[in-house]
């Protein structure tokens, strides 16, 4: 038999630490507020890439070839009734310079007129972010990135300065520092109905005014209107509450009410810790964050239920044992399992964190924090609450319980 770890002794200090953390999170929320994402704050998020015009591509033959440039290859799909359907692709790593690429593409009757950087590696070409181009007599322009870091232009200050006339604007660097990729957010105050149609064009024009025509590429544009973001915010609240309620009902059916309440208290604790984390790291708060919180609500409950399951089993095995002892014993017995399940899930989430970018990366990070908090709250908060409840019930002496209750319920 393993040695039983005396978890119950740490219940009170743990509760105090948790309260401190949550209060700290609230303080951040009050003083700094959320860094609201576009879904919760009406406006346009426009991702732009500053680049150099590299070549004009045109096609005079029959059919409709469609050009797309990805990070690794240039692909042209020929289809239509008047040509032999086929796909031509050139690997950017092996094709050589941009001039070599032009020569290779000439074999497919595609004319590439190089504007700049003929001798540079074709890997510098900027992917066709705005969708694929249908080639025709009218040339389309493709871009390239800087050949050396010193060629890069457009600092974040310059970008900010050039777009500040558009409206209430904030600018963020996305990607590596010298990638020349920026996210420009323009807030929508709801006064102009055609805001979403006008703003992307205005931003682009402003940037082109500063950096030169043909040098600005829009990578993606997201817009959320005021009414939409409002209804999203209210439904997020409702859903979070309903989820908690549903879990409370389920846990009450499976166990007793105090167990259900303890479990729910633990997951609320995890949600609040995550909120604090999101606030203090200035991570963008958007629907993905809500998804992370709801996921943790559903996930963190698992460990708690396994422990409660064990408490019930163990108390049946030895009805005379004190609750504190049973709880300690049950937590100890399931501790390995608690750690391993969290660890395996964390391995998967870590892989998500490492291999993705943008909102999914933030999502994975929020999940990791939630999982750590979940493991901790399972052991200390949920069981601690159950013990407190039973203590209060069994020992109605107000003196001992009151001080406990005050600390625990003030959360």
């Amino acid at each position, binding site marked *: 038999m393993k040695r039983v770890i005396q978890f119950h002794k740490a219940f009170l200090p743990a509760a105090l630490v948790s309260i401190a953390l949550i209060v700290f999170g609230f303080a951040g929320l009050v003083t700094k507020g959320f860094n609201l994402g576009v879904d919760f704050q009406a406006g346009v998020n426009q991702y732009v890439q500053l680049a150099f015009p590299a070549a004009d591509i045109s096609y005079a033959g029959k059919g409709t070839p469609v050009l797309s440039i990805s990070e690794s290859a240039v692909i042209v799909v020929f289809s*239509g009734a008047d040509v032999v359907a086929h796909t031509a692709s050139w690997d950017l790593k092996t094709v050589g310079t941009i001039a070599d690429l032009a020569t290779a593409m000439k074999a497919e009757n595609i004319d590439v007129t190089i504007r700049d950087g003929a001798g540079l590696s074709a890997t510098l070409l900027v992917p066709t972010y705005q969708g694929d181009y249908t080639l025709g007599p009218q040339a389309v322009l493709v871009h390239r990135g800087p050949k050396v870091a010193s060629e890069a232009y457009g600092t974040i200050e310059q970008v900010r300065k050039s777009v500040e006339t558009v409206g209430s604007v904030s600018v963020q660097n996305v990607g590596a520092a010298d990638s020349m990729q920026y996210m420009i957010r323009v807030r929508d105050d709801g006064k102009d*109905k055609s805001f979403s149609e006008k703003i992307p064009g205005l931003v682009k024009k402003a940037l082109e005014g500063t950096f030169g025509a043909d040098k600005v590429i829009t990578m993606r544009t997201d817009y959320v*209107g005021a009414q939409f973001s409002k209804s999203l915010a209210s439904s997020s609240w409702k859903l979070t509450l309903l989820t908690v309620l549903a879990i409370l009902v389920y846990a009450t059916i499976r166990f007793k009410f105090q167990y259900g309440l303890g479990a729910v208290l633990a997951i609320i604790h995890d949600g609040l810790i995550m909120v604090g984390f999101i606030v203090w790291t200035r991570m963008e708060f958007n629907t993905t964050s809500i998804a992370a919180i709801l996921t943790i609500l559903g996930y963190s409950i698992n460990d708690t239920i396994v422990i409660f399951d064990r408490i019930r089993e163990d108390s049946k095995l030895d009805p005379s044992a004190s609750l504190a002892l049973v709880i300690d014993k049950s937590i100890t017995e399931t501790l390995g399992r608690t750690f391993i399940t969290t660890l395996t899930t964390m391995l998967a989430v870590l892989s998500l964190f490492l291999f993705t970018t943008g909102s999914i990366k933030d999502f994975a990070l929020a999940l990791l924090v939630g999982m750590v908090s979940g493991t901790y709250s399972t052991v200390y908060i949920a069981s601690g609450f159950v013990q407190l409840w039973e203590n209060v019930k069994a020992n109605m002496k107000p003196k001992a319980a009151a001080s406990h209750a005050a600390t625990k319920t003030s959360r």
Partner: protein
Amino acid sequence: MNKTKRFLIVLIVLAVAFAFLIPSIRWYYLTPKEDQALALGSREQIRDYAWRVARADMAELEKLATANDESPLPVQYDPMVKRARKIYKDLGLKTPQVWSAKAYLAAFDNKADALADLEDYYRTHVLSLKTLHGSAVQLGLDLSGGMSVIIRADLAALETKTGRTLSPAERNDAVVRAVEVLNNRIDKFGLTEPVIRRQGDDRIYVEIPGAADPERINGIIMGRGKLAFHIVDEEATSKLTTYLEANPLAIDDKLNLADQSLIPAGTVVRKFYTKDAYGLDEWTGRYMVINAEPGLDGNHIESATVSSDPITGQPEVVFNLDKEGGDIFFKLTSANVNKTMAVVLDDRVRTGARISGPIQANVKITGFAADEANNLALILRSAALPVELVVESQQAIGASLGADAINQGKNAVVIGLLAVFAFMLIYYKGAGVNAAIAQVLNLYLMFSILSAFNLTLTLPSIAGFVLTIGMAVDANVIIFERMKEELREGKGRKASIQAGFAKAFWAVMDSNITTILAALFLAQLGTGAIQGFAVSLAIGNMSSLFTALFVSRLIFDFNTDVFKRQTLSISWRVK
């Protein structure tokens, strides 16, 4: 249940899952890119494509036949030869030894039949690919690139404009009409399959895969359709029609003539369209030569209604012009009496009407069936769409970003899976293999369910899968830990397995049910991205119940009974 039965159930589930995966495999791995591009075109583009290719083939076949070439047809004609063979057989004729062009053409009564058959072949072929695409797993916009827009029909503004409260029927009509207009506009610019869906009372959801240039698409969605009246050059039209009948390929699919001297300067060729049974634009096969300059711009139309002629009972379309338009129209019609005027919407001729005399402001067009008249009225009215459309939210993602996202997702899934495998194998030794098999099956089942229900795969749903991989292992862990405890108490392999599964059952169920509960609530939350995540989380949890409780148990039992294993390899310490 005995093992054979359980094994059969697992096999059946795997086979059914595979059947669901077939369309996705065929579309994403076995269909060449150029065929995909064709299949993703609008139905109208496919029809045009079949029309053109059939004519090109026909020209080739006739050339071979006239040259008395007796050699067999090249391989690309194999599918058509197969169809011709069937015709021979149905007629009870002996099929030819060598399928030369002549033998092939002899299967048909005349050239028109042969042409129709060729056209039908190409059309059916591309349309079957389109159906295939429809039954494969769909890629979300974040993976395929493209644009989604939620548009609200501003009914409040419409009420202010009309100065009265709209009845529910009127509100509905306004939104229905807006959807129809959007359908028309987006259909025209074709290429990929647009999704246009009404959402709730006054919202319209539009999704255009592939295209991600908001400026261009906003122009299409929010812009008014370009309606104009053009005077038709009938002489040139009939000359061109005769010429094109003989040389159907003398005009390319962008309506450029090989020989521009066929039409007078200042005129252009346009196709004549009608609506088919599904309300889609259908080319009638006719061309019209019209003046390049419009006689009257559609902006001058104030209203349009359908009524019937009080004497003949024929439906007629009546529309009113504003003052300026009336003047222009009067001059135009006075100068062109007895000529035909074409109603052109976005460069497509919709209808033609003979000008019987000068017309001022109240225009009547007669001479079509009731639904045609309704269509025309709709076209005329949509040029002056009364309800204002407001963009509620919009997302545009470039296709290359989508390709990056797919790679990120793949890497995250593979590395996540490998990391979990490595851990399970090291920590649980032999039983880890069992968990690994369960995980692979789990992933396989998840994709199959996604495919079966035609759900959309997005980056968040891949994230859901990765998370599920981590969480699904939990079920294995709960069970394995229980088994270890049983082993520690001195039980044998068989008894430990039995007790382990039995005691862990409720813990596994509880944890999955609570997660599914959370996922179901999450699925209600606004945007599609989060729904994708929630749905894949729920799917993953359900399929992991099957793999952890059923499949994994079966593998353990198999090893016990069939391979006569006495010990359980599950831990380094507990033997």
